[in-house]
């Protein structure tokens, strides 16, 4: 048991290091080196003492999310729809799609809900693991979100906010070219309608819709 535990700890440390390295890489890609360093060093992420939504560094330039919130959103996208045999939500740009879509096609309330839920999830990460959400390892991220939507860790309002954000990420993913044509089966010109074709548990859903 102890050996196993030891191994696991080591693995965790290794994966955490990798995770951190990967995270840095992504942050640099997103915001440039200086900001990324500031985010990762923790100076822009004070540990939340209470479960009230705080915005450590509210955005200045009219954008919906602060740079830190963007890093959390980025990790949420990666965790909710990860890379499998098809690209991840991040690879198709869902982290950029979400703020764009919120600002152009959604209500102020929905925008505020998303800002809140991103900060709420991050505070849970800080409380449970002592780290900002993006710095958790993938297992921790997945577990935290699974618990968040299923247990008393979150309120009903928070669950609703999370559900909305998750669905928006899914909308961004499955209306992207990759999502619609690779993750799903896209029929641009079906050639006619057949009322019955064989299907099984592996059959992909149509990615082409009359209305979205």
């Amino acid at each position, binding site marked *: 048991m102890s050996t196993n535990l030891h191994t696991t700890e080591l693995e965790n440390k290794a994966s955490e290091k990798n995770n951190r390295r990967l995270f840095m890489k992504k942050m640099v890609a997103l915001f440039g080196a200086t900001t990324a360093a500031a985010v990762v060093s923790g100076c822009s992420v004070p540990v939340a003492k209470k479960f009230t939504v705080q915005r450590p560094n509210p955005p200045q330039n009219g954008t919906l999310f602060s740079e830190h919130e963007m890093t959390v959103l980025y990790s949420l996208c990666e965790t909710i729809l990860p890379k499998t045999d098809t690209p991840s939500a991040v690879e198709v740009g869902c982290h950029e799609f979400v703020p764009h879509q919120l600002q152009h*096609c959604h209500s102020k309330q929905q925008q505020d809900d998303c800002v809140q839920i991103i900060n709420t999830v991050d505070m849970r990460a800080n409380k449970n693991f002592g780290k900002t959400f993006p710095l958790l390892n993938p297992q921790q991220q997945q577990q935290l979100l699974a618990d968040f939507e299923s247990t008393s860790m979150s309120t009903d309002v928070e669950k609703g906010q999370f559900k909305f954000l998750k669905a928006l990420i899914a909308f961004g993913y499955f209306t992207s070219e990759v999502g619609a044509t690779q993750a799903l089966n896209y029929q641009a010109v079906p050639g006619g309608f057949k009322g019955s074709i064989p299907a099984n548990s592996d059959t992909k859903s149509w990615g082409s819709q009359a209305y*979205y």
Partner: protein
Amino acid sequence: MTTDLYIHKSDQVYDAIVVGSGITGGWAAKEFCERGMQTLMIERGRVVEHRKDYITEGKGPWKFENRTKVDNLLTEEKYAVQKKCYAFSDMTKHFFGNDKDLPYSTEEGTGFDWIRANQLGGKSLLWHRQSYRLSDFDFAANKADGHGNDWPIRYNDLESWYSHVEKFAGISGSEEGLEQLPDSEYLPPFEMTSPELHVKQKIEEQFPGRHLIMGRTAHLTKPTQMHLEQGRVTCQARSECQKGCSFGAYFSTQSSTLPAAAKTGNLSIAPNSVVHSLIYDEKTQRVKGVRVVDNDDLSTREYFAKVVFLCASTLGSAQIMLNTKTKSFPNGIANSSGVLGHYLMDHNYNAGASGTVEGFEDEYFSGRRPGGILIPNFQYKPSLYKKDYVRGYGFSGGSYRENWQNNAHQKGIGADYKATLTKLGKWKMNLGAQGEMLPRFDNYMALHPTKTDKWGIPLIHIDCTWSENERLMMADAEQAAVEMLTKAGLTEVESYNSVDTGNPGLAIHEVGTARMGHDPKESVLNGFNQCHDVANLFVTDGASFCSSAVQNPSLTFMAITVRAVDYCAKEMKAQRI
């Protein structure tokens, strides 16, 4: 199509002016042109060329910055009403009217959602393509139960004209032999899915008198020589019709009637020409033509003809007539009866239900069927009415398998969640009521006493609400939908009734503002859509309806229009007009 098809100014006295270029106007123009008559089609909006101007056709959602959703600011500014239409999106918004430029008012405490499509082709580009004949029960309904006035026509009067338009337009459907929904001239029907066939069998077994049939749509499932000659080919089941269809697979002015009219060499089109009013000659008691305000530069001009056909939509045609005030007609031309603008109706689409069809996991469908199933009205005569209200309703609906759009809200994080969203979910089936609305004098449109639009035309003011009859009907329809789905074995059945919040107008089946009738004292038009008061003025769009029935009205717009043209042409030849 040649460019000299389009005119700007003209002193010519045409044989016929057709105001409007939608489903009705397209048919009127084609029929006049094919009878060798010089015809001017007047359209208030811009030209939309078949194929060339279908700018979003074939584009996937990723090609749109907001993934087919319309920007909030744009919606607020220009599309506050149009956005309520199911077909309104970033892919189709260029074919919808601009609410900012096209204001109208509604009586305080009431609402009416007026969906508009002011361009060449009008709503024929955007319509839902459902095509059903009215039956003798529909034409007799007002007389039978005393609501509204008696239609001056019966099914026999229209039967051959239905056939005429159906063969040309191309209507897919199945022979059913139902007395409440006469069969059309059909192209093959679209297929049902297995769950639909299953539900059909269960409902027909357990509810004698109710039928579940394939919807009848103006789609070329198997084009005839006549359709190929129009330049139209087989429907590809994209169901993206409202973007425009270069296959010409659904009937529209652009795909069908306009090329036929243009081919005769007798057609001219005046686009960007907003008809302000009709020019009336007190001496001859005839209309001479129309006054037009230019859509773009607001300059004015006139066009002249021997006869005028108003095909400008139910509200549009009545607006033009109400705005034509003359010495003989101080309250609007041909309005000696005082009913012009009154008896406005729509269909009531405010109740329904959906549920899960168990089983059929090893089946899917292929293609996007442009339409669904139909349960025809089963309360189509007084002996079948419910105790507490009159008339009836049908249902439209269909089945589908749940996908990411339905399941994105479900619990799940990571690879499993992603996999679930890419796979097939449960089979679902829904039914949505299509209820008849009674003709009532109190439901009306009038001209606003003070406000005008940018063309100087008085705004339309609408006061139209659901009556108790429609409320009771929707409550019953909700129950009926639940009962049928439940007895068909569906689970997780959920229902809705939105009659308290859903405004009239949104079924986009507005009819009845210049109704036909035997008696000039209580109707505007005779049985040939000719004004009782003005012999060379015809109204052949939905304004002429005496009752709404439950069927989608467009096919009847077509049939009454071609019948009216035939009558008018003969009257002109006999020099009675």
